């Protein structure tokens, strides 16, 4: 009604405006309400005054007398001391609230119990229909008019907090949210702290919580982050049981894996069976499949941004778990309460403990044998003040394999002292370290300065040494390949007002590539006969990145995240530069359907030379060089998103098209053993184009006793490379047309949690030969016996598709909350519950030349596979 009155008054005012003249008036106003005074002024002067009744209600004024003064002076005097002001439009006066001074509320949002900073917590301000979310360090900033404001805080898994806060320009205010589970004594939340899918302009991204990773069925009792990510739409798993991520037609090297900001390369154990992340220290994981914000760069297909825990501010606790493959332990707590915390975790596998049982049945047994992997995470967090915090993080992970054979004895002449020893060792893994300094310059400006180092290395060492007839000899072959990054990065978050979040930053990295350095050292009779290093010298490069982005609420309906990312890569005297525009747009349709569109260009200055369909540790990381250009991709996406059932259900649908340039593959028939063949690798690869497109549907339930999701992907991915497949387009690895994942986690009752995931993937392509032909392996002679083996003729890469893949995994967790505060969990998982013989590979045994239809042998790797694991939290 009041709006109607306002409109009516406005219309009346407009109608009369042209007829009114500016005049001076004389009037006496008794002590009365402001409303009465305004009415009196209108009646006696004939001027039109518009106002909202609720704003003038309750305001009284003292008696006034005016003589031959303008209406402006009278109104100014009447409104003096109130929060109201007026504007003149023609002859009409409109009374409204005076413009308040903007004040900024800023600080951090944290877990009430542990003090852990909450990422992506929402702060809504209903009065102004605006809000913000916390950044990666839990920082927020709200700039609003007024002295106080009502803020509603929410974060998935935490109680909602609705409070009125005084706006004090200089003081930082931290909010502490209580976990829902501590109140309900049941974990019913499997969602993640994330911005509302409808309000956010960001698309093509998914958050995954550590709780979710731990809840999904486990392979050999190991909760695995990447295996959980593989259950999301747009992500394909590659070979059965591996943890490789193939995102929207990309390759594993096109994923930027960031652990607390430091890049990791090949973060896998056991040749890709498990990823390297200890789930007990995970805090937040965000997967971007496209629509990359400008702050990310350097990879074409995805970003997996992993944040680890900072450590409990108030008390010590941790956990310990044992599975069939490995054991892990984590402890966290304060070194100085409210000031300094630490997190320490370690994991080690123990297949080598069981290996002797098998090895002792063999004839030729090594006298030393080792096969294991380990991870170590350490983090220190110190709070200097509300404005300054320091984080020091370290990660180390290695896979190690070693055998040693030793032989002693007399030679044929009966001489003693003869021996022969051969050592074989392999190891690979990542080390990374970061030092981060958070600083709040002002309530609106936050920065994070990071110094980081990351090193991935593959080492292989083979040596043989011995003594024969009193003469010693040795032969050592040492191969090292890897990549090292060292550099610094600074990021700024500037929040001038709720409608804008501006991020900008810069990074400078030194990169050192070692694409397979082989050292050969040989001695004979104690004299060095060979000592050489191959010509695969280290390649040094520098990479510079600059970015700026603005997340801008243009109107309630329209939200834009626009940014630019600039990068420059200097290698071998060549300077590559790339300007990469990024754009995310969300438009709110009627019914709160969010229509989203995005475009992003990405440039990648590194390549992975892989001979296999999975990433192996020996694959070579090589830079763009003078001859090999950087990879580039343009990706477009269009989608819709909506919340249902009060936000319990999230639905999104996205279509995408990605065009990739300068992606490399080995040329047909190239010598694959490049790591020990010098710097010839550049001549063995060919560059071409790739494209992928498809559609993804995602329906997720984040709260309640039943949580989980249904994800469906329809996808195509191809490559066209001049010197591969005769230059013809071919479907790329794991180009599966359909993927369906149904994941459910059900809280049966307190202490019992059920989980299940079902995966369906249509057949992936593979290559089979179409014909065979005679080959010769010796010069032929016109006498003697002859033998002609055959060579297989391959007419096209990935020329056949056969069986679809589907699998049901089940899990059950028995959780017991003990009186002494311990939480004990037994997890039993059964993978491939109905023992589907999914093809791992195919081979052709025989073929009847007369028949078109024949049969091929499919070999499965993973039958029904039960496992059990135990976890104790304290």
């Amino acid at each position, binding site marked *: 009604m009041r709006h109607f009155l306002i409109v009516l008054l406005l219309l009346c005012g407009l109608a009369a405006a042209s007829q009114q003249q500016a005049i001076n008036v004389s009037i006496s106003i008794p002590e009365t309400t402001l409303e009465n005074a305004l009415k009196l002024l209108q009646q006696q002067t004939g001027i039109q005054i518009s106002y909202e009744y609720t704003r003038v209600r309750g305001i009284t004024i003292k008696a006034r007398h005016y003589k031959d003064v303008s209406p402006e002076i009278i109104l100014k005097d009447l409104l003096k001391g109130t929060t109201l002001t007026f504007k003149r439009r023609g002859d009409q006066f409109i009374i409204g609230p005076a413009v308040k001074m903007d004040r900024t509320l800023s600080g951090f949002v944290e877990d009430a119990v542990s003090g852990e900073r909450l990422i992506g917590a929402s702060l809504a301000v209903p009065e102004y229909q605006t809000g913000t979310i916390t950044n990666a360090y839990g920082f927020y900033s709200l700039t609003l008019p007024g002295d106080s404001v009502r803020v509603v805080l929410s974060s998935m898994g935490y109680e909602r907090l609705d409070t009125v806060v005084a706006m004090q320009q200089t003081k930082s205010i931290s909010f502490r949210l209580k976990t829902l589970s501590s109140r309900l004594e049941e974990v019913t939340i499997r969602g993640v702290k994330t911005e509302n899918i409808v309000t956010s302009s960001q698309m093509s991204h998914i958050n995954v919580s550590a709780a979710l990773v731990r809840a999904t069925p486990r392979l050999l009792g190991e909760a695995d982050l990447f295996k959980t990510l593989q259950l999301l739409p747009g992500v394909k798993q590659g070979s059965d049981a591996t943890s490789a991520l193939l995102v929207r037609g990309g390759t594993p090297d096109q994923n930027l894996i960031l652990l607390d900001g430091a890049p990791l390369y090949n973060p896998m154990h056991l040749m890709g069976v498990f990823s390297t992340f200890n789930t007990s220290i995970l805090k937040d994981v965000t997967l971007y499949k496209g629509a990359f914000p400008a702050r990310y760069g350097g990879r074409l297909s995805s970003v997996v941004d992993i944040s680890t825990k900072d450590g409990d501010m108030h008390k010590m606790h941790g956990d310990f778990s044992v599975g069939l493959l490995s054991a892990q332990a984590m402890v966290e707590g304060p070194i100085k309460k409210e000031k300094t915390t630490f997190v320490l975790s370690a994991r080690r596998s123990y297949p080598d403990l069981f290996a002797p049982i098998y090895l002792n049945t063999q004839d030729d047994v090594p006298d030393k044998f080792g096969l294991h992997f380990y991870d170590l995470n350490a983090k220190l967090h110190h709070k200097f003040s509300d404005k300054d915090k320091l984080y020091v993080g370290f990660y180390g992970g290695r896979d190690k394999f070693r055998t040693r054979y030793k032989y002693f004895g007399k030679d044929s002449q009966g001489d003693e002292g003869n021996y022969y020893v051969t050592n*074989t060792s392999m190891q690979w893994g990542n080390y990374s370290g970061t030092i981060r300094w958070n600083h709040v310059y002002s309530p609106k400006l936050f920065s994070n300065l990071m110094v980081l180092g990351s090193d991935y290395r593959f080492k292989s060492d083979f040596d043989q040494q011995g003594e024969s007839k009193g003469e010693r000899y040795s032969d050592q072959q040492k191969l090292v390949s890897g990549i090292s990054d060292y550099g610094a990065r600074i990021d700024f978050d500037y929040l001038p007002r709720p409608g804008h979040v501006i991020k900008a930053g810069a990074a400078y990295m030194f990169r050192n590539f070692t694409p397979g350095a082989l050292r050969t050292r040989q001695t004979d009779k104690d004299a060095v006969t060979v000592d050489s290093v191959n010509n695969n010298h280290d390649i040094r490069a520098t990479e510079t990145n600059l970015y700026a982005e603005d997340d801008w609420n243009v109107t309630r309906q329209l939200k834009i995240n626009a940014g630019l990312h600039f990068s420059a890569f200097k290698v071998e005297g060549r300077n590559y530069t790339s300007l990469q525009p990024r754009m995310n747009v969300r438009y709110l349709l009627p019914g709160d359907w969010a229509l989203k569109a995005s475009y992003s260009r990405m440039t990648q200055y590194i390549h992975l030379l892989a001979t*296999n369909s999975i990433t192996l540790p020996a694959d070579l990381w090589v830079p763009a060089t003078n001859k090999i250009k950087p990879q580039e991709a343009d990706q477009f996406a269009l989608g819709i998103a909506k919340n249902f059932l009060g936000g319990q259900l999230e639905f999104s649908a996205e279509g995408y098209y990605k065009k990739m340039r300068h992606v490399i593959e080995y040329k047909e*028939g190239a010598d694959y053993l490049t790591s020990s063949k010098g710097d010839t690798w550049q001549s063995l690869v060919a560059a071409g184009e790739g494209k992928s497109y498809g559609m993804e549907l995602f329906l997720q339930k984040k709260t309640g006793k039943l949580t989980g999701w249904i994800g469906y992907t329809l996808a195509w991915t191809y490559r066209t490379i001049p010197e591969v497949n005769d230059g013809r387009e071919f479907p790329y690895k794991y180009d599966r047309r359909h993927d369906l994942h149904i994941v459910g986690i059900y809280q049966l009752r307190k202490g019992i949690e059920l989980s299940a995931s079902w995966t369906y993937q249509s057949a992936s392509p593979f290559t089979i030969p179409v014909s*065979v032909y*005679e080959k010769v392996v010796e*010069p*032929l002679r016109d006498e003697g016996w002859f033998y*002609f083996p055959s060579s297989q003729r391959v007419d096209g890469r990935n020329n056949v598709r056969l069986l679809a893949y589907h699998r049901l995994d089940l899990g059950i967790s028995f959780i017991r909350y003990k009186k002494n505060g311990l939480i004990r969990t037994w997890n039993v998982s059964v993978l491939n519950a109905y023992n589907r013989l999914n093809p791992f590979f195919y081979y052709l045994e025989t073929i009847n030349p007369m028949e078109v239809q024949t049969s091929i042998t499919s070999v499965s790797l993973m039958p029904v596979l039960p496992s059990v694991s135990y976890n104790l939290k304290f």
Partner: protein
Amino acid sequence: MLLICSWLIMACKKQVPIHFPEEASRPVLSLLMEKDSILVARLTRSARAVFANKFPQITDATIQLYEDGQFRENLTMFEKYEYVFYKSTVKVKAGSTYRLVAKIPGYGDLEGSDYIPAPVNVGELSVNPIPGSKGHQSGEIKARISVQIHDKGGERNYYRIRIYIPYYYKDPDGTLYTEKYPTSFTTGNPQDTWFDAKQRDQFFIEDALFDGGSPRFNLVIDRWNKVNEAIVEVTALTADSYKYLYSTAMAEEKNDDPLSEKVVVFNNIKNGYGIVGGMLQQLYSVKP
């Protein structure tokens, strides 16, 4: 744990019907040439099969031989043990380039060419049995065979090493015969040592890592026995014959590896498949 490991190891198989893609048969010209020998070539067709030891033979073709660009002769067809061959009377000389042109009625010409490489400058050769080690069979032990090659610098050279165990026997009239049997060995090549020492029948080497150097290759056989002798074959290869032989060996090794891309065998025959490749083999007897 053992139960699970055995589950994993025990791969499950099943037969899947497939509409097999088909490619029309194409002519295949195969010739590996050796210094001071006549040329003996095969001309066959590819077949729709997985494994075959007998391919359709082309018997109505004419194969022309060119030496350093000059026509020398048409090869003569002959048949032995049901196999059809084409041979020259010309003996191959080191340093010359030989080109074959096969004219097949109703089909275009096939053509391929190569040359004979220079001999390998083989350095020190030795064999050292490894006392206390266990060989392939009872009574056999391992032995380390060391082969040194003096590489000619400034050019790309390609080599192949194979090892044989000789067996000597006399027939009833007292004539001594020698037969050599190929034996497999492990190499010091880094990739061959990963996880388990790979047994190879032949070891391909290119001099990218040691151009002009004199590397020593330590190869370990596990069939050392009373014979007390090994025969080392060192072969110089041209780039084409190296690529062909190496890719056929790689295809044999990798095409059954489910995680590897299928290897496309190199061929240098225009309008068909196969090889015209040159090589030079040298044999050495080594004893402790």
